[in-house]
């Protein structure tokens, strides 16, 4: 993982690395851009459709692209269009946007647990790109997550989102309907592709957590909007798993204690590697 550049000390920490060695950063950035490619593909039809509907709703191309540039949140942007279409006020739209995107609070907090400390500026940059998909790709990677890796993933997603919003505004129907419809599966396929290898690695914990997440979302979606439903489903699943693990011990109390030790061991390693 780590490349030793000149003047390595006993601990392997060079001043250059602490400040961010450009060569290593470029490497992580490239890896991030590559891993962000499936998101870029998945965003294509969603962004094109957004551009198309934005035009139909009466936004100018500048407004549509500006929204994709500044907001960078698919569900909220779609919602704002439907609200604008029925003549909702700006305050209502902003409030709804806030509510829908509040779930990212949870995702950023989770990334915070796995990411290298980095500089505040680096965190401020990738926080901007913390969509569901960017979070999903980054969070299923091995810790410690590198700032420039997350920035790379986010940049690939962002480029596609903004670019295809503009393209969609003008050429909306340039993709055949069959292709557009088929591409709607892309983001779900991406989520599956991220989840399944974690099952191999982490076992039934992943299956149970994901199953509860999906189940709770399906049920909660009957009462509340997507943003809240995803957030509550996540909290319920994670808390539910913790409670189940403690109450049932999943069979053996010793095992869960062992898991605790393993976890702390992992923590220690993480801490060490992020110190390097």
């Amino acid at each position: 993982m780590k490349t030793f550049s000149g003047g390595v000390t006993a601990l392997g920490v060079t001043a250059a690395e602490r400040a961010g060695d450009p060569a290593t950063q470029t490497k992580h950035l490239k890896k991030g851009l590559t891993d962000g490619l499936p998101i870029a593909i998945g965003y294509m039809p969603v962004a094109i459709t957004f551009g198309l509907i934005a035009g139909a709703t009466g936004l100018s191309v500048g407004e549509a692209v500006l929204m994709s540039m500044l907001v960078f949140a698919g569900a909220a942007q779609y919602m704002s269009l439907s609200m604008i279409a029925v003549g909702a006020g700006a305050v209502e739209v902003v409030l709804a946007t806030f509510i829908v995107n509040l779930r990212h609070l949870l995702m950023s907090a989770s990334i915070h647990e796995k990411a290298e400390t980095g500089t505040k500026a680096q965190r401020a940059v990738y926080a901007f790109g913390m969509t569901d998909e960017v979070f999903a790709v980054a969070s299923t990677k091995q810790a410690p997550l590198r700032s420039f890796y997350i920035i790379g993933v986010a940049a690939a997603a962002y480029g596609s989102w903004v670019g295809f919003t503009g393209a969609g505004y003008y050429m909306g129907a340039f993709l055949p309907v069959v292709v557009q419809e088929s591409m709607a599966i892309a983001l779900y396929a991406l989520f599956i592709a991220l989840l399944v290898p974690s099952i191999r690695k982490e076992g039934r914990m992943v299956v149970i957590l994901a199953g509860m997440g999906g189940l709770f979302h399906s049920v909660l979606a009957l009462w509340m909007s997507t943003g809240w439903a995803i957030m509550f489903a996540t909290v319920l699943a994670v808390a539910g798993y913790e409670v189940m693990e403690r109450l049932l011990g999943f069979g053996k109390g010793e095992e869960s204690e062992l898991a605790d030790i393993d976890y702390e061991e992992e923590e220690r390693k993480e801490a060490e590697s992020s110190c390097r």
Partner: protein
Amino acid sequence: MSMTMVWMIVAMGLVTYIPRLLPLVMLNTENWPAWARRMLTRVPYAVLGALILPGILTVGDNVWFAVASGGTAAVLAYFGAPLIVVVGAAIGVLGVVQMVF
């Protein structure tokens, strides 16, 4: 561009960015109990589950189309195919299924 619209978009951007930013610059989990930190590391799996279900079932004209496409993705992912291959194959399968049925 109407100024009202521009300000609305700027405000939308701010209320989106703030929840994404705050935990990363302000949260200090160092002294949190192990269980709380453990729960944070488990968030990704629960989120992935919630993102896949029930949304995937609305893709395509028929629930089974999404199941076929998603199933293909799951099998390929299980055998370690790269992300891009999994995503491409899922799109391909859905396209073919939609055309045939």
